[in-house]
């Protein structure tokens, strides 16, 4: 018993000595845990189907957005389609982050963001592996590599499939790149996402979202999706591809009618992100009538 105690002290002293001798390595913060979305911006919220406010869409991106009919997601083969990487910022779920060590060396192999219902998991490879050839197959989650810059984790995703980037409003193509920056400040995690797309965006689309570390995530478990008969007429007529012809979207003017915001702004474009655009609206915009009591004043 006495010998065992001495042995423990020896092991402890050896560990302390070894730690003292270990040279400094790159600084990192621990991102593991479940991070609940704060959701106080309008990232995941929009009442009107045609609301492209502040989205730097190209002409092609705008045409794609206003031809989209959300019923397309009810087609049997698309019901279980996952969203693209930007969904991590605009979706309704928490981020469940874990570290995946190499089983042999214990070096950090990847940072994993768990999947959720309609979002595939993201493996942020930290071992220096290169991105695949541009001809490599694309997936819904894409291929992601990461690196620490001080206490900030930077990750870059390529090779992801086309998908809608803001709750069925606007799309990213399969040539897009997503760069994330993860900033941890205490129990707060701010993620900045920079989406670049030569097809559907004229300038980078940059979003932020704030998450809080939680021990009581109350999140829905990941469940396997199973197609069902959502819209009978699509089931009966599988040849139908839901869409709207140019200029025919029935909700095109909803934002203008409700908030007095000109259609030109509603349809997005890079110029609408800059302060100058505000001055452009100054002489024509009038605030809408007062909202009825009880609207707003809560989380989105």
């Amino acid at each position, binding site marked *: 018993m006495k010998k065992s105690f001495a042995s423990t*002290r020896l092991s402890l002293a050896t560990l302390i000595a070894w730690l003292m001798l270990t040279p*400094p390595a790159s*600084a990192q913060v621990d991102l593991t845990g479940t991070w609940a979305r704060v959701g*106080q911006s309008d990232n995941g919220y929009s009442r009107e189907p045609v609301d492209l406010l502040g989205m730097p869409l190209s002409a092609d991106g705008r045409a794609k957005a206003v031809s989209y009919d959300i019923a397309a997601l009810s087609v049997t083969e698309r019901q279980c389609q996952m969203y693209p990487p930007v969904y991590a910022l605009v979706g309704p779920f928490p981020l469940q982050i874990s570290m995946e060590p190499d089983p042999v060396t*214990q070096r950090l192999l990847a940072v994993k963001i768990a999947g959720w219902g309609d979002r595939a998991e993201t493996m942020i490879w930290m071992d220096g592996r290169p991105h695949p050839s541009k001809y490599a197959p694309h997936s819904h989650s894409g291929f992601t590599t990461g690196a620490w810059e001080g206490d900030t984790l930077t990750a870059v995703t390529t090779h992801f499939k086309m998908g809608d980037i803001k709750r069925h409003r606007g799309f990213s193509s399969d040539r897009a790149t997503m760069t994330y920056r993860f900033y941890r400040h205490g129990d707060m995690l701010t993620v*900045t996402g920079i989406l670049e797309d030569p097809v559907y965006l004229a300038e980078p689309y940059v979003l932020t979202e704030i998450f809080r570390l939680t021990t009581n995530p109350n999140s829905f478990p990941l469940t396997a999706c199973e197609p069902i008969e959502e819209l009978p007429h699509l089931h009966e007529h599988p040849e139908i591809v839901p869409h709207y012809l140019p200029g025919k979207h029935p909700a095109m003017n909803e934002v203008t009618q409700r908030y007095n915001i000109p259609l030109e702004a509603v349809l997005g474009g890079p110029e609408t992100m800059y302060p100058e655009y505000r001055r452009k609206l100054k002489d024509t915009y009038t605030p*809408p009538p007062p909202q009825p009591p009880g*609207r707003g004043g809560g989380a989105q």
Partner: protein
Amino acid sequence: MTRVACVVLVAAFALGARVHGQQRAGGAPQPPRSPRAAAPIDLTGYWVSIVTQDWRWRMVTPGKGDYQGIQMTPEARKIADSWDPAKDEAAGEQCRSYGAPALMSVPGRLHITWQDDNTLKVEMDTGMQTRLLQFGSPQPSSNASRSWQGISVAQWQTPRPTVPLLLRPAARSSETAPVRPTGGSLRVVTTNLRAGYLRKNGVPYSENAVLTEYWDLSKLADGDQWLTITTQVDDPQYLRGPRLVAPLFKKEPNNARWDPTPCSARW
């Protein structure tokens, strides 16, 4: 016991050698560097707001009663429901929506410079406001005069200098060069505020609100620089929980688009 003492002695000697080596490499102990000299990131220059979020509440003045996304107390709602820009103008309070808790979300441009070695000056062209972020200042006394921009105490936050990576063979070698972490962020806490609006249409914050911010930089491969300001407003009087947003800015090469405009209660 002898072996334990021996191991600890070796460790102490090794640590002493390291400290000695660091002192020898850097020469005589240096006086602490000023916040300006010690800045881990360079925030100076011109920055433009990029409004990709909350466009409907930032780029135009929302209608009365549109409080979507803000967790207000009933008292706050009552005040917001009585919002009257004409009254604010008559009282000379056109700048109520340009106070520090709201300013970084107002579309405009920032010009950030060092006023002196301890003070970052942040000017905003929209509303012609100036924030002074003071390093190392004591908390303001309760009788200090209140203002739209309040008193801001700043502090650099830098990565920890060492994080041992256990079981990493390369790290065990005594010849491995130390990795010096780079980067960091700026933490700013602002108090002594004059009561104002979080949103242009009269959503209030009280003079007891506390604003906590983290300023972080991203430098992309193409040279673009982005500034993310994680913003937390705590105001138990008017908010049911912390207000958390993270406005974005992109760096500009010069002041070509700098356009000072006065506060407006209506626009």
